[in-house]
């Protein structure tokens, strides 16, 4: 008996019991569909976040200065000294706090960023109107502010904000520029922001020193080198107290995020694999019932010359055909579901061929594993007893 003949037989027997076959396959269908949809959504989210981080620029470094107090802080001039290197394109020391801003009856809570002129370049903002914070504003503690696009609309509506004034924590500031809209990123909206000179913000918030330095490295290849240089400088500054500062690489963030999402994908895959396993047990159950039901058929086949091997192959192929068909239906449903998800919920869904192949392969493998026991049981039936079975 050849294999194509065996597949024909299996097909016939599956079609003879359509409802039961469908119910038997259900576990595999759901398992495969779940694998494909869940992993698709997981990978889609990863891709979305990765793209976003990458769009911020992979040559960005963030220096966090956590050590506070009279001796362990740096002021903005020291920060600029530290970051004054050939390989650093721009560096913006930042002293940032949340505050409520107010114009007449309009008030909102935004992040107020005290910084230097380089901030515009580091963050790759564009100016929509007016000018940005300049060195002279820092030197003279000017109470001027540049507004993010959303904050400008929140405070001044559609009227031109430049030249008008508003209150930050009750202190009056004059608007000198408005930033062009940039959208959201990992760290929240880029348009809900108020930028003021860092010297002014130290006074306003009564907090001396720099909390963060954003650094843009000229060449992405020099990242590691710059990180080392910065760490050496900072270590000198804080007399070896490495807990007072931290140089944070955008790539580190990306790596740690992708490791999180990998773990998540693995967990999703694991859950789906368990459901496939349960589906396989379902197939085994039905196959065992089917072997008992068809004892007489097995007896007849054996009496007219079917060998043990023939019966074994017949039932094994039936089980593989069931699980394989279930796998194919599952793939169709999984792809359909992810398409619906991506359209209805605006989620990026990445369908990966290896995952689809793996899910299908696994479902066929399940068919083999869980088909073996029933097939073996069938092939070991003794023809006389099987023929006597009613």
């Amino acid at each position, binding site marked *: 008996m050849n294999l194509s003949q065996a597949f024909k037989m299996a097909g016939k027997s599956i079609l003879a019991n359509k409802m039961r076959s469908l119910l038997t396959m259900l576990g595999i269908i759901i398992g495969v569909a779940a694998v494909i949809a869940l992993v698709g959504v997981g990978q889609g989210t990863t891709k979305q976040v990765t793209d976003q981080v990458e769009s911020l620029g992979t040559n960005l470094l963030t220096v966090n200065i956590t050590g506070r107090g009279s001796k362990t802080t740096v002021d903005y001039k020291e920060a600029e000294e530290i970051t004054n290197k050939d390989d650093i394109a721009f560096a913006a020391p930042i002293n940032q706090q949340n505050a409520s801003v107010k114009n007449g009856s309009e008030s909102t809570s935004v992040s107020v960023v005290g910084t230097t002129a380089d901030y515009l370049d580091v963050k790759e903002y564009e100016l929509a109107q007016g000018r940005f914070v300049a060195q002279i504003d820092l030197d003279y503690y000017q109470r001027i502010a540049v507004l993010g696009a959303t904050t400008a609309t929140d405070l001044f509506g559609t009227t031109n904000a430049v030249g008008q004034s508003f209150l930050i924590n009750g202190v009056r500031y004059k608007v000198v520029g408005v930033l062009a809209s940039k959208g959201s990123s990992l760290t929240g909206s880029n348009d809900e922001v108020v930028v003021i000179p860092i010297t002014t913000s130290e006074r306003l918030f009564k907090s001396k020193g720099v909390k963060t330095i954003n650094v843009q490295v000229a060449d992405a290849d020099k990242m590691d080198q710059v990180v080392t240089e910065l760490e050496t400088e900072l270590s000198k500054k804080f007399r070896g107290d490495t807990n007072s500062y931290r140089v944070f690489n955008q790539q580190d963030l990306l790596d740690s995020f992708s490791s999180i999402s990998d773990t998540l994908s693995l967990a999703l895959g694991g859950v789906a694999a368990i459901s496939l396993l349960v589906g396989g047990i379902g197939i085994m159950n039905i196959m065992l019932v089917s072997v008992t039901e068809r004892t007489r058929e097995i007896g007849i086949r054996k009496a007219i010359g079917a*060998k043990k091997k023939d019966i074994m192959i017949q039932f094994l192929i039936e089980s593989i055909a069931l699980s394989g068909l279930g796998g194919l239906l599952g793939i169709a449903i999984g792809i359909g579901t992810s398409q619906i998800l991506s359209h209805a919920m605006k989620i990026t869904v990445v369908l990966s061929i290896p995952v689809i192949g793996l899910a299908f392969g696994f479902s066929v493998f399940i068919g083999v594993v869980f088909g073996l026991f029933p097939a073996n049981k069938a092939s070991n039936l003794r023809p006389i007893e099987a023929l006597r079975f009613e």
Partner: protein
Amino acid sequence: MEAKPLIQIETLSKQYKMGGEIVHALDDISLRINYGDFVAIIGPSGSGKSTLMNVIGCLDAPTAGKYWLDGEEVSRLRESKLAEIRNRKIGFIFQGFNLLNKLSALENVELPLIYRGVPAKQRKEQAIEALTKVGLGERVKHKPSELSGGQQQRVAIARALAGNPPILLADEPTGALDTRTGAEVMELMKELNRQGHTIVLITHDTAISKQAKRVVRIQDGQISEEGGERREPQSSLQNGG
């Protein structure tokens, strides 16, 4: 020197345990069946005739003794080899037809040829030929449930014939049929015998056994020759009891 017999059984015994007791289903039996014979094995239920049929049909192995089928010693063969012998040498005709209900008449008849590995085209030709022989050439696409009892038994006979085995082994072939269709089936069997097929028929009905050329009676696991149309000379039996 006589021609080699199709079936030669020598001092064959079959015992099995049932509820701790050993049952001697066949006790030291010897039997020869020649090519072209039409032998009826008759006996009441419990006489061992089913066991004898299972042994002759290579469905069961004897406990002791020797059994040559078509010149081959088959009493000690492995299961897969026995399956092959059943496939090539024996055509089974069962009391309950034992057709596969989900397959058409043609597919049922093709089944033994599938296990023999006959290519599809030749298989179909042979199956149709066998069905035509039993007068069902027009009903090849029908399922067993769409056929009458007599027609189903004829499909079963066609299935037995399809592989052109040297022996047809019929177990109460008319048992599930009414008298008239039973008679038709018997006519068909006699016709097949006239065409040269060797037939071994197992029955408990003397009216059926009388139509055979030769009758072997079995009682309590032992056999005795009884004659039918033609009495076999006692000398052909080595231990005819």
